[in-house]
């Protein structure tokens, strides 16, 4: 084989290869766009004021999904109450306080492991600790605490990363003006990192809002005739409701199923869009 032939063969190989990668990417991306569009098309006709604000009727086969929407709100708020202060403080510790020693490495390993634990194992843990041992029962409180611990690693890592992106000269200047470490964090680095921190919080809560397995045995309920009255009550929630109506309710109208899925998607993807907008605007405005 002479040289020009070799060059031709490898050129042909390159063309085939590049197109193969294009095809692979196409096959990955198109179904995602396809199912989003499909859910919107199938689910939109179910949406109505009644669907969003009424109690379910007729064994959940008619009426609305209001208690599931309200329950998901409660769980999101409960999760935020516990996980945001703790997660942001932990991120500050790792980025601004911790020195590089064995304990810090242990903290890092713990965070990596928290991030990797399967969601159903969080459910077991929540059942063992919050529902049974601490006797909270299946309640919004127990479910929120379970979701909080699951959300923690996301908030910690994004807070840490956002703080690390603040240039070191900011800290040096603050310290040289007599600022203590906390004053530097409070007045300089944390405000500078705030868009990144908020993005991380939203992405963490987005994950919590969509989870089913951690709340199945800690706080979610199949059907409740009224809204929860206190954090010690169980609640309906959108993800668990989707699971129930798509697997355990015979004769469930498909339109209501798609409608419920669409409502959850609007929540989740809406949070995703908000997070992206905050991140992009901050990036555009940043002066360093």
């Amino acid at each position, binding site marked *: 084989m002479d040289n020009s032939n070799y060059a031709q063969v*490898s050129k042909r190989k*390159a063309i085939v290869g*590049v197109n193969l990668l*294009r095809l*692979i*990417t196409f096959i*990955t*991306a198109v*179904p*995602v*766009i396809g*199912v989003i569009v*499909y*859910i919107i098309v199938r689910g939109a006709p179910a949406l109505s004021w009644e669907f969003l604000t009424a109690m379910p009727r007729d064994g959940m086969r008619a009426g609305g999904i209001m208690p599931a929407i309200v329950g998901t709100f409660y769980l999101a708020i409960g999760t935020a109450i516990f996980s945001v*202060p703790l997660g942001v*403080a*932990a991120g*500050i*510790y790792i980025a601004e306080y911790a020195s590089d020693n064995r*304990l810090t490495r242990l*903290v890092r*390993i713990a*965070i*990596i*492991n*928290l991030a*990797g*634990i*399967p*969601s*159903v*194992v*969080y*459910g*077991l*843990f929540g059942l*063992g*600790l919050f529902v049974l041992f601490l006797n909270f029962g299946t309640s919004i409180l127990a479910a929120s605490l379970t979701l909080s*611990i699951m959300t*923690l690693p996301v908030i910690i890592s994004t807070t840490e990363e956002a703080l690390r992106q603040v240039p070191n000269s900011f800290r040096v200047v603050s310290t040289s003006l007599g600022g203590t*470490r*906390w004053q530097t964090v409070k007045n300089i680095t944390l405000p500078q990192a705030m868009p990144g921190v908020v993005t991380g919080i939203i992405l963490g809560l*987005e994950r919590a809002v*969509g*989870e*089913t*397995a951690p709340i199945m*045995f800690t706080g979610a309920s199949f059907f409740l005739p009224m809204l929860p009255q206190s954090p010690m009550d169980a609640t309906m929630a959108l*993800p*668990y409701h*989707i*699971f129930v109506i*798509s*697997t355990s309710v015979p004769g469930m109208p498909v339109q209501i*199923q798609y409608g419920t*899925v669409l409502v*959850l*998607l609007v929540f*989740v*993807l809406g949070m995703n869009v908000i997070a992206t907008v905050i991140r992009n605007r901050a990036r555009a405005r940043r002066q360093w």
Partner: protein
Amino acid sequence: MEMVKGERWITWIIRISGYSSILFVSLILIFLAREGLPALGKVPLGDLFGTRWYPIESYFGIWPLIYGSVLVTVGALLIGIPFGIGTAVYLSELAPAWIKNILKPVIEILAGLPSVVLGFLGIQLVAPSFREFLNLPTGLTAFTGAVLLGFIAIPTIVSISEDALNTVPAMYRQGAMALGANHWQTIWGVTVPAARSGLLTAVMLGVGRAIGETMAVMMVTGNAPVLPSSWNALFLPARTMTATIASEMGEVATGSDHYHVLFFIGIVLFLISLAVNLTASSLALRSKKRAERLLS
């Protein structure tokens, strides 16, 4: 003086928050052990690792469940690895900026889809079409679960692979090009090998994501905790460890043998995720050190 005192308090709060992750991992381990280890006393070890899972008649053999998890995870990786890494290579090495701007949000959307939504789509769309195309008695099979899991693992694999490819210094590519290599030869001969430990990390975390996935798998795999009797097990119903916990925990009496065994499965899952994540993070650390050495 007053200010320093206040600062000391805040420093302690921040420090304790920082350590809290260690506390939570320990608590998780303690409570899984507290509820799961009694299973060892109540069910003989031989039975626990037996081949039959039929809790109503006190058969608590967890092999069929481990097998189900492995089967579905391997199937997911057969899809997730080529598509995940292929997409990452395309995005990082070949795609023009405008395509990146469309595709990256699409991958993020896939990452953000709740698994119950994917399970729902599995029941409504994927399972019926597989049943038709593959001419199966039911579409709720290990294969359907594997396909969904592949898509669930893809965003993890893509984002970590892409990071790994992006950290390969530009001069590697320039060197290869200068020697006359074309795009394709540069990618497979230089860039991908240089990023291999990062790609391996991506695959490991994909494994972790797949083996721990619960809702989607539970909804589409047909819930049959059996060991394979023939070669086409992938196209038959199966049942993973995660799905078993999720579907049976709601119905067991607290403190029963069945209850303790379900927690014991939780311990197994915890240990698997621990092993997977420690391996992945040590791989990532090693590749970082290597990159630093090469660049210095």
